[in-house]
Structures are given as structure tokens and as C-alpha cells.
């Protein structure tokens, strides 16, 4: 039961790769939760009839949302892959030795999945369709 340490002091601590992974896990988690809330609200407008819903969906077809969707994709993928890594390490404590390697392995997988999907998702923007 320590005294609370300020974010600033905490950020200045030189932890290892797992500490940064942990921090990004929280940030991406919050980001996905925010999107999920918006997504539920927007889906709820289905009950206001076709016009209302279709108008709402039009909002997603803007460059801003297209780029935001790529951010969402990153957040979901990161949160999923990093979460699996943490679960594995929690249930197989002997893997502590490979902590750094596992963080990086997660990143490599993330990049390999994320980059192609991101490019694909941004194609309409590159083609100037939006």
C-alpha cells in the first residue's frame, strides 16, 4: 500500500518492454471501449427507421472516420495480441525468461497483420474516393 505516485513520476521510471506494453494495453483498451460505446449508440438508431440510420452511417464514410477506423483496427489487434501474451505468461510462469522476446514477437505479429489490413482499409482514401 504505497502512496500514490503521479503519472509523471511513473512515466519517468525506466521499466522494460513489458511496462510499455502494459501502458499501451490500457490506452488501447480505453480507446476500444470509447468506440464500442459510440458503436452501440449508432446501432441503436436502427430503431428510428431506415432514413435516420442510413444518415448516421453516412458519417462513417468520411476521411476522418476512415483513418479513425485504422486506429481502431490497431487498438483492437494490439489489445488482443498483447492480452493473449499476458494470459500465456500468467498461466505459464516459467516463461518469465522470455518476457522481452514475447513482447517483441507480439509486435511482429501485430505489424504483419496490421499493415496489410491498414493499407487495404485506406485504399478508398488513396484512390480519392472519399
Amino acid at each position, binding site marked *: *500500500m504505497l502512496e500514490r505516485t503521479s503519472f509523471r513520476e511513473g512515466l519517468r521510471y525506466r*521499466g522494460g518492454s513489458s511496462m510499455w506494453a502494459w501502458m499501451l494495453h490500457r490506452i488501447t483498451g480505453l480507446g476500444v471501449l470509447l468506440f464500442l460505446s459510440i458503436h452501440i449508440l449508432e446501432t441503436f438508431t436502427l430503431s428510428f427507421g431506415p432514413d435516420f440510420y442510413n444518415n448516421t452511417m453516412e458519417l462513417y464514410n468520411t476521411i476522418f472516420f476512415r483513418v479513425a477506423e485504422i486506429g481502431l483496427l490497431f487498438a483492437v489487434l494490439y489489445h488482443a495480441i498483447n492480452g493473449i501474451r499476458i494470459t500465456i505468461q500468467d498461466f505459464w510462469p516459467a516463461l518469465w525468461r522470455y*518476457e522481452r522476446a514475447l513482447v517483441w514477437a507480439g509486435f511482429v505479429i501485430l505489424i504483419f497483420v496490421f499493415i496489410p489490413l491498414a493499407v487495404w482499409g485506406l485504399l478508398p482514401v488513396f484512390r480519392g474516393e472519399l
Partner: protein
Amino acid sequence: MRVRFDIKRYDPEKDEAPYFQNYEVELGETDRVLDGLNEIRWRQDGTLTFRRSCEHGICGSDAMRINGRNRLACKTLIREVGRRVRIEPLLGFPVVRDLVVDQQRFFQDYRSVLPFLVNDDPPPPRERLQSPEARRRFDDTTKCILCAACTTACPSAWGNDSFLGPAAIVQAHRFIFDTRDHATVERLARLAGRCGVWACRTAYNCTMACPREIQVTRAIAEVKRAALLGGP
């Protein structure tokens, strides 16, 4: 070589806020950070306050933040830290003066996991025997010197002020996995609660900070598993 020390100083009775003070000390590569601190205190500035006792990494008095990471000053060589050393007190404790912090809470948490052997069986004539394999099960966690480096490096402990912290769990691990101990159920109940192991997010700062190279995160994960399965 000349090594520059930037030391965070604070005397709550005199200073309004902590500030950094610089010192230059002539040291060799294989001198320790603690030698630098001693040099400053003995020859340059007698007001610099820090704890140390054994000077050989066994009493746990001189854990501090050295270049942003928790380490023992008496176990850290100058060649590991370079010509500029930044020294700050451990996080999460009230500063008594300079690098000396009030570790009251840390030892309270330590005591709350019952860090002693509980066994009410009548003692056998010579000693309570244990096989070497059973002894090896908790060998790692017997090495703890209660320096608090792990607990004050833990991002969960920085935020969650009801978390008992890695060091207390390491101490509990030492008894939970000891076949001679009979308080496992009680200890696990304390650690499975709101203040216990579930606040650990597997960030490994503790393992990296431990000067005794205890596999702290691993010990915590083993206690998690024991709590989940109801026994070691």
C-alpha cells in the same frame, strides 16, 4: 574518472520542494555508486542523507532510483551507469530526508501475509525434515532481503493503494510452497482478496528491479495459480 552525481534532495522541514544538487566525484570503473555517495557525504557535503549498512547487498538498506531504475547503490558499479548518475529516492514513500524514505507501509504489508512458519505440530526430536526437492520449490523466494525495490517499481502499486505489492507476495510464496507450513489456506485467502495478487498486471518491473535476481513475477504467477486452484 570524474563522475557527476545529480541527487534529488529534500528536507521536508526546510525545503518547499525537492531539488537536484550536483556533485563531482573521482571514481574508478569498478567502484560502486555507494562509494560515490560515501565520498560526497564524507568529503564534500555532510548533509547528504541516505541509508546503508552492510555495503554488500544483503541488508536491503540502500535501494534507490539510479538513472531512473530501482537498484541497490552497493551493488551497482560505476561502469554500469556511466559518467552521469541521477539518484532519486524510491517512489511511493514519504521522503524523510533526501534518499531516506519512510517504509512503514511496506513493512505493514509484509507483516500482513504472515511471513513466518506456522506449524503447531509438536516439534520432532531433532528438526522438521524436508526433502531437497520440496526445499527447492521455494528456494528462489528465500533470497529476498526486503529492500522494497520491486514493490516501488511496480506500476500497479504506484496506482492501486490497496495492493500489498510484489515483495509481500514473494514472502508469502516462500511459506505457501513450504511443505512444513500449515497456514497456506489463510495466506492464500489474504492474497486472493482485493489487496492481493490480482492487481498484478504482469509488467515485470519487479523482476527487473530485484537486486537478488528473484523471479518475482514468476513467484506472483505461481501464487495466482495456487489461489485459483485452492492450494499449491
